[in-house]
């Protein structure tokens, strides 16, 4: 799964630690999600969407390979 976390963070001038505080998770977890090493659960994805004030699909999207398979 791909995500726009890094771009959205940069737009708001937030560090990974700032976002981690808002989500109440560790900075390492934000980094793992941002770099695509971990796909968040649905509740956490909703929380991320709420923090940015966006819909989930505006932040997360399926991989191109996964989309092609569909």
């Amino acid at each position, binding site marked *: 799964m791909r995500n726009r976390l890094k771009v959205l963070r940069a737009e708001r001038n937030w560090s990974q630690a700032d976002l981690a*505080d808002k989500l*109440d*998770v*560790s900075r*390492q*977890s934000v980094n793992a999600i941002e*770099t695509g090493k*971990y796909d968040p659960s649905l509740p*956490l994805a909703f929380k991320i969407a709420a923090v940015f004030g966006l819909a989930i699909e505006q932040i997360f999207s399926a991989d191109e390979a996964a989309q092609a398979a569909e």
Partner: protein
Amino acid sequence: MTAILPASQNKRRALLRNLMIVIGLGMAACAVIARMTDIDTHWPMLALLVAFCALAVAQFNTLDEVAKQAQYIAWYWGSMLGLAAILLIQLPIAFAGQRPGFMQEALMRWVDPDPMTSFLTGMMTTPLLMVIGFTLWWAAYWLRRR
């Protein structure tokens, strides 16, 4: 208990982790005192161990989902690694009928040769190797995601 802890999950986790470090140091101090003096530290050690376990449960509940997944994966694969290490030690005993030389030397150096100590040592070897495997796997998994 939740009322006296900080509302933020991150601060709560850090507080519990720091308390666990202090208790861990206390247990290490008890072990050193027991080894270097005649003072009996069994009861303080047991009390610290119980407190450590209670904090470990509380601390696990403060982990976020990424950290929890790291724990699950590390426990599954890391402890499996520990069990495989036990197998490597067991094979020469099973086939040659005798302990490998390095084991013999380690046992002679660290363990009293009475049956109860030998039994307890054998009982602790498997979980110890599983915990070592868990720690290595967890560290590798977590460091790759930093």
